[in-house]
């Protein structure tokens, strides 16, 4: 009898531990007949904004309730593949990282093709490319945001030092010298994070290597990353090193941000995506921006604004509410959603015909529409291991540390890209 008791006790402990793990998750469990749609995002900071946006949608679609679930950006790529694999309780609509990272989900059959289902007529092809399958050419997401990169500057410091936003390279160098003499770090950037260096290179070097013409030639295989113009563009970043913070290769991304927001640095080569966080940390900071003037010898004689699509919304193939999810994603391709997105979240919407309410963002977008070029290392060379921006940033790190020359850096970049990129085929 006692033995039985022991056996029973052991089994009940086991059951208590194991059973909850097997229990199916209930769908909302709210008792009414509304459909719950879960939207998965890497921007938890946007939760309040999205709640407002979706409240509008729910008014016209009373049969759905949208639950916005934010996951920390640094964890998102690790979490997403598991979430879309869930047989039950997974998300219905998911934010997708653009270009490279979306490909493995497409090949795994985790996403629903949207061709012919959503209205994206009139969208620029390069915007839609961010959400397309590299192999099958189908569309798997509705792009939601554009990012542009340029040089941000502190208007107060520029006014105090009587500096105007430079329009030529000589003016830029003169401004930097003047700031340095005044004890102000001319430019804050992070040399510790390869991706930040790659962005700085795109901002200052794109005109030097030939911007869109060069990236097209590199994609077709006519040019490589050992091309003299490309090497000279790497050199442009190296030439700016005296104007970066001391020991720039030890400066982390948040440090660079802090240098700029605390007013210790006057300029910050960065993206439209920085404006929101900067305003949050220092609401009094008056930020302006300018496009980097072409460096001497540039192949493109006018400034350019580089940009890319930041992400798209797709539908999980495992979602039990395909019809409702599609309805929502269709709405995300409309101007109504795009404008709300721009207004509520202070971002540039990817939906054509929408204007950011923020004047700075509106001007950035206008520049991009006017003379925009793709951020080559992400848009064209972000599809394999190693990622273009990582291998370029790492090579720049070596240059800034004095461990590599531009031609050595170029060779390393070419070697990394060639490990997976087949010219002409687009990888």
């Amino acid at each position, binding site marked *: 009898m006692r*033995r039985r008791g*022991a*056996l029973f006790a*052991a*089994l009940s*402990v*086991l059951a208590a*531990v*194991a059973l909850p793990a097997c229990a199916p998750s209930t769908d909302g469990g709210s008792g009414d007949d509304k459909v719950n749609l879960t939207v998965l995002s890497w921007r938890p900071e946007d939760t309040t904004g999205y709640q407002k946006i979706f409240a509008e949608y729910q008014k016209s679609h009373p049969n759905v309730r949208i639950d916005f679930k934010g996951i920390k950006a640094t964890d998102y*790529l*690790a979490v997403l*593949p598991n979430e*879309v*694999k869930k047989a039950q309780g997974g998300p219905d609509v998911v934010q997708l990282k653009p270009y*490279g*990272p979306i*490909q*493995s*989900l*497409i*090949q*795994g*059959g*985790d996403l629903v093709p949207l061709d012919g289902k959503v209205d994206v007529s009139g969208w620029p092809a390069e915007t839609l490319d961010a959400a397309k399958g590299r192999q099958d050419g189908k569309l798997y997401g509705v792009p939601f945001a554009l990012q542009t990169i340029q040089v941000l500057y502190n208007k107060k410091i520029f006014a105090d030092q009587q500096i105007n936003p430079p329009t030529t390279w000589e003016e830029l160098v003169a401004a930097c010298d003047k700031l340095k003499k005044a004890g102000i770090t001319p430019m804050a950037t992070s*040399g*510790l*994070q*390869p991706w930040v260096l790659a962005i700085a290179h795109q901002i200052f070097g794109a005109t030097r290597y030939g911007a869109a013409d060069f990236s097209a030639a590199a994609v077709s295989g006519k040019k490589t990353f050992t091309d003299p113009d490309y090497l000279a563009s790497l050199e442009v970043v190296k030439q700016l090193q005296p104007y970066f*913070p*001391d*020991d*720039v*290769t*030890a*400066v*982390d991304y948040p*440090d660079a941000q*802090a*240098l700029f927001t605390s007013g*210790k640095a006057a300029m910050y080569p960065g993206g439209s995506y920085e404006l929101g966080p900067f305003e949050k940390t220092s609401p009094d900071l008056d930020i302006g921006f300018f496009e980097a003037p072409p460096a001497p010898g540039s192949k493109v004689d006018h400034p350019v604004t580089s940009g890319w699509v930041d992400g798209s919304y797709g539908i999980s193939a495992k979602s039990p509410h395909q019809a409702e999810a599609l309805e929502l994603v269709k709405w995300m391709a409309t101007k109504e959603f795009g404008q709300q997105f721009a207004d509520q979240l202070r971002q540039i919407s990817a939906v054509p015909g929408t204007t950011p309410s923020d004047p700075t963002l509106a001007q950035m977008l206008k520049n991009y529409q006017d003379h925009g070029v793709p951020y080559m290392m992400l848009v064209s060379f*972000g*599809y*394999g*291991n*190693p*990622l273009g921006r*990582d*291998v370029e940033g*790492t*090579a720049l*790190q*070596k240059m800034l*540390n004095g*461990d590599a020359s531009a031609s050595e850096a170029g060779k390393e970049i070419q*070697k*990394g890209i060639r*490990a*997976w990129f087949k010219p002409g085929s687009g990888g």
Partner: protein
Amino acid sequence: MVQARQRRLTAGSRGAFVGRPGKPGRSRRPGHPARPGRLGTPRRRLLLALLLPGLTLYTLFIVYPLVSALQYSLFRWSGTRQSGFAGLANFGDLFTRYPLSEQVWRALEHNVLFFVGTMLVQNTAGLTFAVLLHRSRRGKRFLQTVFTLPHMVSPIVVGYLWSAMLNPQFGVVNATFRAVGLDALAQPWRGDPNLALPVAICVNAWQWIGFPMLLFGAALAGIPEEYHEAARCDGASAWHTFRRVTLPLLTPAIGIVSVLTFVGNFNVLDLIYSLEGSQGNPAGATDVLGLLFYRTAYQNPDANAIGQSSALAVCMFVLIFGTALAASRVFRRMEDRLK
């Protein structure tokens, strides 16, 4: 996880060391003779029933993931879907396909350096402190607590804390050097490829120094004072007594500390990640196997990311488990020679 394991083992082995000298081997209590050959007795069934919950959890959370990683590594993947048996192709990729073929060896080299550095800095200092504390009468408890305190903090926090202190712009370390006129010592600690790994070793040692200190302290307490007295009577100097009497008797503790340091160091991810990011900056100077696995699994646009990263995980497991096993054997043999 590693820390948890270390902590658990610390607690367990401490008792073992304290009680070790003079204790007879495994002896059975009289009146409870073993009953070999009687399988399926009620007693055995009871034992099985009691073991079952633990065994199930262990299988579910330890054995199953290990086996599934092995299975994953033998398949080719298209994103999150298996697309055919690959044999050892994923393992081949690790060693033949650029950039993995270079990164694997570089990461392994950094792990070895990290381990050697930790042994030299953390465990040597740990032993020194243990010996000093063993002799001191005052403040022993207090100092033990202080040294062990960083144990309680997550390596991620420790990493970010030191990142802030070593910051070239706002950090307290360089500011202190500059304030006392030692400007030459103010270095780009995390940004110089030659300094980054030694800095990571020192930060790691700062966090874990209490662990070898406690273990060695417990082992020292277990060495009978008569041995030292006898050595002194024979005219041995303090150094000789330590070298010829104390150190050999510490072999079991040295073995445990070395093996656990090895396992912890070869699994290191969180500390380096928080100090230098997922790329092992600058320019891969602090890239270790754990980070490489993280990147191959989660930041890899290759469709076969799961296959490649699982292969790497299996290699790491075999390396760590195999070496730990072999090292334990060697240390056990050395212990046996002591008896």
